[in-house]
């Protein structure tokens, strides 16, 4: 297929079809690990990497895999990728790996990945599939960091605490004490209810923005229609004279 629009893939992944915000896929890791921004970033990157590799390999082998066995095939490809990512993180980002724990192997069960394999990569050439995997993963990553940052900010008044588990000891100065040392903390934001409330609010904000854009488009369309009608009236008026 040559009619692939990269712009559409990018907008889909980041906004209109965002894995977390719109498809509501991968909620388990999304809600569970986002109690601070760094955890969100770590899991987001792992998911992003898995999505890119799995989309690429599924697309690469799409002509040789029979329809009947495609789902087990996807699962095995994804599982192999996740194992690789898991081992890599354990080797090079050991502390982050410890913090995220079970949620890295659980990327296998993240529906966003198998959904992209089935809905996109199995029908498209390799390059668009890789771009799609990257954009879907990036949209998910942004959401994870946003939600994690929100919860961390409200819950403990910091941003990028524990950055050292990801970027090494040099990054321990990255932690921002946004509200000063006296901030009493708001435990609810860090506990699971905070994840649900936070995600709900982010989705609500996205819907509000979409509504506004839609209304604006409608008004513009009406305005151009009106202008065209006026123009044709004038033309008609001239003709009848």
């Amino acid at each position, binding site marked *: 297929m040559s009619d692939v629009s990269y712009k559409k893939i990018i907008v889909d992944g980041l906004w209109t079809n965002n894995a977390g915000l719109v498809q509501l896929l991968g909620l388990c890791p999304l809600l569970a690990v986002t109690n601070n921004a760094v955890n969100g970033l770590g899991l987001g990157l792992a998911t992003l990497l898995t999505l890119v590799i799995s989309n690429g390999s599924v697309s690469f082998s799409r002509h040789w895999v029979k329809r009947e066995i495609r789902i087990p095939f996807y699962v095995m490809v994804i599982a192999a990728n996740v194992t690789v990512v898991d081992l890599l993180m354990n080797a090079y980002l050991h502390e982050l790996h410890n913090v995220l724990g079970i949620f890295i192997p659980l990327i296998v069960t993240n529906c966003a990945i198998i959904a992209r394999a089935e809905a996109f990569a199995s029908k498209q050439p390799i390059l668009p599939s890789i771009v799609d995997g990257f954009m879907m993963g990036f949209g998910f990553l942004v959401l994870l960091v946003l939600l994690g940052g929100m919860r961390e900010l409200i819950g403990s008044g910091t941003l990028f605490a524990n950055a050292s588990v990801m970027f090494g000891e040099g990054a321990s100065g990255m932690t921002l004490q946004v509200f000063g040392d006296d901030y*009493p*903390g*708001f*435990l*609810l934001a860090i*506990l699971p*209810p905070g994840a649900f*409330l936070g995600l709900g609010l982010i989705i609500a904000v996205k819907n509000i923005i979409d509504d506004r854009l839609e209304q604006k488009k409608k008004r513009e369309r009406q305005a151009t229609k009106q202008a065209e009608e006026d123009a044709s009236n004038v033309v008609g008026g001239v003709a009848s004279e």
Partner: protein
Amino acid sequence: MQFDTRTAGLVNDAPDISHLMKQVLVGLSLGIVTLFMFYGWGVLINLVLAIVFAVSLEAIALKVRNRPLKPFLNDWSAVVTACLFALTLPPLVSWWVLLVGLFFAIIVAKHLYGGIGYNPFNPAMVAYAVLIVSLPLQMSQWPGSFIFTGEWIGLGESLNIVFGAADTDWDAITRATPLDIVRTGLISGQPYSDIIIEEKFDFILFSHPMAVVSLAYLLGGVYLIKQGVISWRIPVSMLLGLAVSALVMWLIDSDSYASPSFHLLSGAAMLGAFFIATDPVSASTTPKGQLIYGASIGFFIYVIRTWGVYPDAVAFAVLIMNMAAPMIDYYTQPKVFGQANARRQRGRS
């Protein structure tokens, strides 16, 4: 059978919401006065601040939602929410705790769900639960009654404490509540009767201020039932549910479980039974459903108080049953007149 037909059956004298809400406030007033007498200005400061915050937040929410301000502000529901919430907080708590709590009550629990009449959870209890989970320190600093500390904290000083202008020696003015003392005592293995004697509580003779306040709520609640504002079903079944659960465990082992009278008269049991569990929006509405709803709240209060980790359990028990109320209503629909007969005849044929 004779029916009383002095008034036409279809004349509907349903009072409006604001009337009901004002009646609730009248019912609360005795409890407020008693609480003030024992715990000082902190109680009234809480109430005034909570009302101001709640009404302002309500106005903001209505404005954002493009709803008319006047009819909704005039229904007094925000004021009642504010009062119930304020009465569950420790007096002299910092002003921002009230603001955070009321944000969750009015904005999250009420207006995000569609405003009055649409909230599945009791707003005041949502606020309380959010705060007790998030700010356990601030929420557990109950000042002791002046009859224990021997010091009446004046209005000016109370305001200073609430607005953080003065450094407060919390250890000097706070005192563990009976629920806390009994809980920690029982956990450390002290027999219940010893704790009661040591702390000089006697919840039959009303020797603790909390017990007297509970009695005041009870009287206010009875007034509401007499006025027809609330039905007797939820409060009675809730108190019975709590008392029976407590009685069973107390009879099994009176050393490691507190007595029923202690459970009924401590914490927010009375306030909860008459003023919180009876919230007409979030509670069960069918007659049989109300009995199930109330009794389950009583049972959960006992369970959470005894085996949970939080000081009081009314908020959690009410929220759990708020969740179950639609299902209870679904299964306890009263039979339509004549339906039972129809079924019986069908069975016979």
